[in-house]
């Protein structure tokens, strides 16, 4: 059985270059020079803070190649067999098998293990679809759903769709859920941890853009540029966004526009930092975590990603609420800068 599967996987690998992947490669090549320039200037400023290595030079020489070709054959193979097996468990077993074959045939580039963490609080309606989409786009990536004390069927839906589920006994907020995700990643030997919202507003296919930017940085934020038209905000909420973007851009030494994005990827050093010090307070998961990362000397980058319409809930436009948001955001920012600066723990990198 396994021989047959391997043959099929290898055959699929031979005829690469599907139209949509070609298109994505093109898009990435357009973005790449900008990222490179930023990274180079940052290297001058933060000498010795980068994870120098063969992988990153590889990424620079072949922009768009790294990551995007990974598991191409497997993906088509998976699509073919999905029609035959709709059972989630069988699918999971097959995915793991395919992933192992992928590694054996030397198709995967680099030895990075990536963990996708989805903090989920009562997301039974959308989470199944997000997990399936992620598994389709990246069967080789492990998906951890952190159930943040949900009272609905989130856990069952996530398990049925083949995700690993960590259940918090009560609600801790996104920050609490994410620290658990980073801890899980650290304990289980994952180099990179990506946070994706469980409500489906992020496209799992954008993972490649975010992950390839991670070659040059410790923390990559997927910013919602594409949906800017639908994401227009005014008044205090807008001021809050501007204040946050300006302040955080300065301390991160790079231009950040969407500081509250829930789509972010952390490299090995940031994973170690966040497993210890990811804040659980209000806005801590977005604002304070950026401050912690930049003060620890992490290299932070922002890449554009598409954002889809949220299935439910829009940003509040009530003036009082918006003013309160501004106040709390400034407070969170102030407290974050007053707090202690944590060093990047390099010692544990060796072990």
């Amino acid at each position, binding site marked *: 059985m396994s021989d047959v599967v391997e043959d099929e996987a290898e055959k699929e690998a031979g005829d690469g270059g599907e139209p949509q992947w070609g298109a994505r490669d093109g898009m990435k090549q357009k973005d790449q020079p900008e990222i490179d320039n930023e990274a180079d200037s940052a290297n001058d400023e933060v000498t010795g803070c980068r994870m120098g290595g063969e992988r990153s030079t590889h990424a620079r020489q072949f922009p768009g190649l790294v990551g995007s070709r990974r598991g191409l054959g497997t993906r088509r193979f998976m699509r073919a067999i999905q029609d035959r097996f709709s059972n989630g468990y069988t699918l999971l077993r097959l995915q793991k098998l395919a992933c192992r074959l992928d590694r054996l045939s030397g198709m995967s580039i680099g030895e990075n293990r990536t963990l996708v963490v989805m903090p989920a609080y009562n997301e039974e309606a959308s989470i199944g679809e997000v997990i399936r989409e992620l598994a389709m786009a990246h069967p080789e990536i492990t998906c*951890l759903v*952190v159930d943040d004390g949900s009272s609905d069927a989130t856990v069952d839906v996530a398990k049925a769709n083949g995700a*690993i*589920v*960590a*259940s*918090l*006994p*009560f609600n*801790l907020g996104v920050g*609490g859920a994410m*620290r*658990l995700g980073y*801890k*899980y990643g650290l*304990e289980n030997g994952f180099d990179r941890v990506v946070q994706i919202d469980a409500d489906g507003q992020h496209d799992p296919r954008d993972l490649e853009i975010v992950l390839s930017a991670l070659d040059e940085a410790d923390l990559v934020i997927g910013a919602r540029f594409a949906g800017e038209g639908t994401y227009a905000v005014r008044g205090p909420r807008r001021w809050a966004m501007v204040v946050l973007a300006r302040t955080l851009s300065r301390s991160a030494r790079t231009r950040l526009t969407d500081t509250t994005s829930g789509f972010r990827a952390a490299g090995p050093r940031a994973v170690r930092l966040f497993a210890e010090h990811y804040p*659980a307070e209000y806005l801590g998961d977005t604002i304070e975590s950026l401050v912690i990362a930049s003060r620890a000397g992490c290299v932070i980058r922002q890449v554009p990603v598409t954002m889809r319409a949220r299935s439910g809930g829009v940003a509040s436009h009530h003036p009082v609420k918006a003013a309160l948001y501004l106040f709390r955001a400034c407070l969170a920012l102030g407290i974050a800068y007053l707090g202690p600066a944590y060093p990047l723990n390099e010692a544990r990198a060796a072990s």
Partner: protein
Amino acid sequence: MTVTSYIFGVASAVIALVVVIELLRRRRLRERHAVWWLLAGALALVAGVFPGTLAWAASIIGIEVPINLVFFVSIGILFFVCLQTSAELTRLEAKTRTLAEAAALQGVRLDELETRLKAANPPER
């Protein structure tokens, strides 16, 4: 000041101190939480037994009506007790968070072990 009010003042301070010490003795109160209450009880006892010390302390600071010093010190002590309680609450929340994370991580490990166990020993028949 009448004898009754003198006795009343001293008795109140003694009762407060006795309650705090009794709680400490029964390990119902940790000593780092009891420090402020012991301080308050001791001050009340001193001011109750020797009312002159209160007037003397007030005159040193420049407070004309000594009773205002009592109010000031009482409110100050209550303020610090509240602050300490809030700080303690934050510490406890941080610990609870760590415990919750540990429990969730154990849960994941258990799930994985059970799955493996089932795969290794498929149910007979």
